[in-house]
Structure formats: structure tokens, C-alpha cells
């Protein structure tokens, strides 16, 4: 993913434009720029504009009513709870996995990294299905769960589990290359000087990786709040109880309540924009940090 960008100060394009050796002829430049911008407009900008356009088509009144609807509020709350549980879990995991993988050499490292990446390319539909196979009434643990009156699938825990699964690699994936790049000299020095493992991590490693970590958390959070396919399979779609925001969008859409559907969708798009804003801020902060250490 967007790993390596994090610790990079954005290079000033002027450097290339003023250098005859790295400059293209004007028409090549215009072609490349034109192609890039057309691609951007067609595939990124227009869909985003369409969401807000549809959301506000019937005016602000409809927009605000749609968002303050009880079911919409319940969906927003559930989405927040889900992210609040899933993100910290994957945060702790990501740090542990990155520590083991980046700071040590061991057998089967590529294999382990691939396993960690796996949820990223597993179809969300399968991600939901596996939890039904495990915890559904006819699943492996179905009878036991039913006997103890514990509900996992078609209830909040199932939604959280599916979300944890699809966002599983995000933090680890950001941290592993970053921590590998930083090597282990600093940590080894701290250890030799008598710091225990926890002190080493807290005082030496964490300050070095904090921006990458935050970036991973933000991406993880965005995906956690936006997941549709996997959550759809395990949700049960009970209005006001087990509908997350993306599911609520689908329901509203299916009720021909297009303005409301796009209103909730616009909230998610807004979240995406805030995410991207934060990300840009983090990159800027990180590049400042790099400049200082240089």
C-alpha cells in the first residue's frame, strides 16, 4: 500500500522542470498531464462529486432529516463501536507482528508476511462466509454458542469479527517496511545500555514509527467504517440494531430513498476526505521530522 510515501518529504517538482535532462518536450508534458488529469477526473473526482450532488439534490433540509433519523443514528453508532473495537485490536497486532518480522531474521518470513496479507485479497464475501461457517447455528461452534446463549453472527460481535478480519493487515503492512528500513542499531544500543524491552520499544522504536503507525491506523479505520461485503453477510440486517452505515446506505437505496441514501453515503465520503486530510497532515509532519533529523 501507500507505505513508502509516509517518510518522504514531497520532492519539489521544480527540480525536474528546470533541468534540461529531466524535462520533456511541451507536447509530451501536455499529453502526460492531460492523460493523468482526465483519468483522475473520470475515476476519482466525478464519483465523489456525484455522491454529494445526489445527497443535496433535495436540499439541506432533507439532508439533515436523513442524517438525524433514528435508524441512521443507530447505524452511525454501530459503525463507531465496530471501528473502536477493531482498530485497537489490529493496532496491537500490527506492532507485535512488525517487531517480530522487521527486527529479527527467521525461517519462513516471506510465508508469514504473505499470510498476514491474505485477508487483504480474500473476497469480502468469503470473509463473511467463514464466520457463518464457524459461528452459525450449523457451524462448528453453533451448538455450544446456542447452549450458552451467546450470539456472534447476526449480532454485533460478528460484525466486529468480520471487520477485524478485513482490516487485519493494514497496520502491520505500514509498519513492517518502515521498521525494516530503520534497522535495529538504535534498539540494540538501548538494550546494551541496559534498557528493558518495554523501555526500548517505548523510548526508541515508538518515536521513530509514530507517523507510520498513525497512518496505518487511519487507513485501518477508514476501511473498518466502510466495509460492506463481509459485514453484509454476517449482519442479519436488523434495522436499528445490526445495520452499519454502509448497510444502511443500501437499505435506503432499496427503499427508493435516494436522497437519504446518498446523504448517509456522503457522511462516509466525508469521512474518507477527513481521512485523506489527516493523511496529508501526517505526511507533512513526517517529512518535517525527517528534515529535522537530517
Amino acid at each position: 500500500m501507500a507505505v513508502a510515501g509516509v517518510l518522504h518529504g514531497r520532492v519539489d517538482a521544480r527540480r525536474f522542470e528546470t533541468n534540461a535532462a529531466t524535462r520533456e518536450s511541451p507536447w509530451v508534458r501536455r499529453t502526460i498531464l492531460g492523460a493523468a488529469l482526465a483519468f483522475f477526473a473520470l475515476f476519482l473526482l466525478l464519483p465523489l462529486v456525484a455522491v454529494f450532488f445526489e445527497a443535496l439534490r433535495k436540499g439541506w433540509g432533507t439532508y439533515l432529516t436523513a442524517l438525524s433519523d433514528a435508524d441512521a443514528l443507530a447505524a452511525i453508532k454501530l459503525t463507531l463501536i465496530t471501528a473502536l473495537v477493531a482498530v485497537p485490536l489490529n493496532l496491537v497486532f500490527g506492532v507485535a507482528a512488525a517487531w517480530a518480522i522487521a527486527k529479527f531474521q527467521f525461517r519462513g518470513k516471506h510465508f508469514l508476511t504473505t499470510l498476514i496479507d491474505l485477508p487483504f485479497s480474500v473476497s469480502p464475501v468469503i470473509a463473511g462466509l467463514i464466520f457463518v461457517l464457524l459461528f452459525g447455528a450449523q457451524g462448528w461452534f453453533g451448538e455450544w454458542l446456542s447452549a450458552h446463549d451467546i450470539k456472534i453472527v447476526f449480532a454485533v460481535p460478528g460484525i466486529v469479527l468480520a471487520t477485524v478480519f478485513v482490516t487485519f493487515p493494514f497496520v502491520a503492512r505500514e509498519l513492517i517496511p518502515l521498521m525494516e528500513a530503520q534497522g535495529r542499531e538504535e534498539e540494540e544500543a538501548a538494550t546494551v545500555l541496559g534498557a528493558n524491552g518495554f523501555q526500548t520499544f517505548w523510548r526508541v522504536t515508538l518515536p521513530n514509527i509514530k507517523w507510520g503507525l498513525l497512518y496505518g491506523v487511519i487507513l485501518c479505520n477508514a476501511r473498518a467504517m466502510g466495509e460492506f461485503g463481509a459485514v453484509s453477510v454476517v449482519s442479519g440486517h436488523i434495522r436499528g440494531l445490526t445495520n452499519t452505515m454502509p448497510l444502511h446506505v443500501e437499505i435506503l437505496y432499496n427503499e427508493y430513498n435516494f436522497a437519504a441514501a446518498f446523504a448517509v453515503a456522503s457522511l462516509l465520503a466525508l469521512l474518507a476526505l477527513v481521512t485523506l486530510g489527516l493523511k496529508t497532515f501526517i505526511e507533512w509532519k513526517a517529512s518535517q521530522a525527517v528534515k529535522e533529523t537530517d
Partner: protein
Amino acid sequence: MSAVAAFFNPTRQTRVLPGFGLSIGYTLVYLSLLVLIPLSAVFLKSAELSLAQFWDVVTAPRVVASYKLSFGASLLAAAINAVFGLALAWALVRYRFPGKKLIDALVDLPFALPTAVAGIALTALYAGNGWVGSLLEPLGIKVAFTPLGVLVALVFIGVPFVVRTVQPILEDLETELEEAAASLGAHRWTTFRRVILPILTPALLTGFALAFARAVGEYGSVIFIAGNMPMVSEITPLMIITKLEQYDYVGATAIAVVMLVLSFVLLLVINLLQAWSAKATGRNR
């Protein structure tokens, strides 16, 4: 924990640092509980079929047609992203133009925008009466509800991958190489082809493979725009859903197994590519 640590046998000089046993142990337990054991359920469930039955399910004509669409459209989408992603990354690194910061930030939009929202928005845009679709319709090009629609959705979700893997390499590229090539009289195109492209290739391939892997499993955004015609515009994840709708858990898991194995192989290739990329560029990332 120590047994785990012993199995992985980290080489001696790396043992100075503490916490290997703890971190690898935690990693493995968490990985097993949340990913491996749940995924194994798919394999075990599909094992309820005999080998011949399994083969029949995963090679049924409709399913095969769906592989062709899912993998073909994903491949094409990844290729489109490789070309235009490179152009976008190139423009973002090397040119100055208004709105550059904004465009740079919005490249990650497909990561953050929920797939269902993306699907609905794309369908609204590319349908015959949508903003883009109404321009294409007179030309005889139908996007929504055709395999072309699938392609559009898959291109959308794959945009960030190529841009974000190529961009840092482009930024790190030493201008000296190009200056040397220019001073030796090389044409700009020749320099690009012989000097720059070889350096970018591993990152391009990684981005291509990531976009491909993501596209193959995509469901939420595609389902709205695909049209879902049997043999024509049905994607493989839809075949799984279709089986589930018929209470056919076993059949669904059989197709899931095929997809899982392919995903795993793909990712393994990606990780090897990344290792190669790190070596080729002399970077330790």
C-alpha cells in the same frame, strides 16, 4: 513461546533484542485465531464434496465464465492502472500544476470510500442517463450493465496501488542518471525506456499485482454496475453469493477455495516481487 522461537530459529546476532518470542507468539496466535482457523473452515467444508464433485462445481460453464470475467477484467483494470497510474505518479512528482496537493490527497479515495457507495455513484454516472454515460451512449458505448462496467469499477478501486508504489521510487530517482544519459546524446524517449523504466519496473509490477489481487475479490462496487448476466457479466464472488442463496454452502465454499488459493499464490508473488524490488533499487524497503 521458547519452543516457537526455537522453531523459527532467528539467527544468532539478532538475538540481542528482546521480545522475539513474545511478539512472534502473539502474532501467530492472533493470526491463527482470526485468519487461519476461520479460513480453514472453508477448506474443511468444501471437503464434504468428493474430488469429482468439487471439480464439477468449480468448472461449471457459468463459473468458468465468471473466472474469465473476474480475472480478465481485473487483469485489464490493473494494466490500465499501470499506464495511467504511472502517468499520474509522473505528473505528481515532476510537474507543477494547480490543484496538485488536492489530487495527490484524493488518489487514496478508493481506499477510504465504502465500496457500496462507490458502486452506486459509478452506476449513477455511467448509466445511459448519467453524466458520463449520456455522453458515451450516442457513440454506441454502453458502460453500466455490461462487462465494461465491471472494468470501470475495478479500475476505480485499483487507482491508488500503482500510483502509491511508483511515486516514492520516482521521487528517489537520482537526476544524475538522466543527466548522464542526456550528455551521452540519448533521446528523451530512449532515456525513459532504457534508464528510467527498468528502475520503475519492480514497483510497477508490485502495484499492478496489488491492484489485480484487490480487483479479483471485489464485490460491493461491482455488483451495482455489472448487470449480472449469466455467462456475460457475472463475477466470481457473485457465483458464491448465488450458491449461498440456494442454501448450497458446500458449493459456495468450493468456489471460495479456488479463489483463496489463487489469492494466496498472487500475494506470494507480490511479496517476492517486493523483495526483488528492494534489491533492484538498492532500497531497504
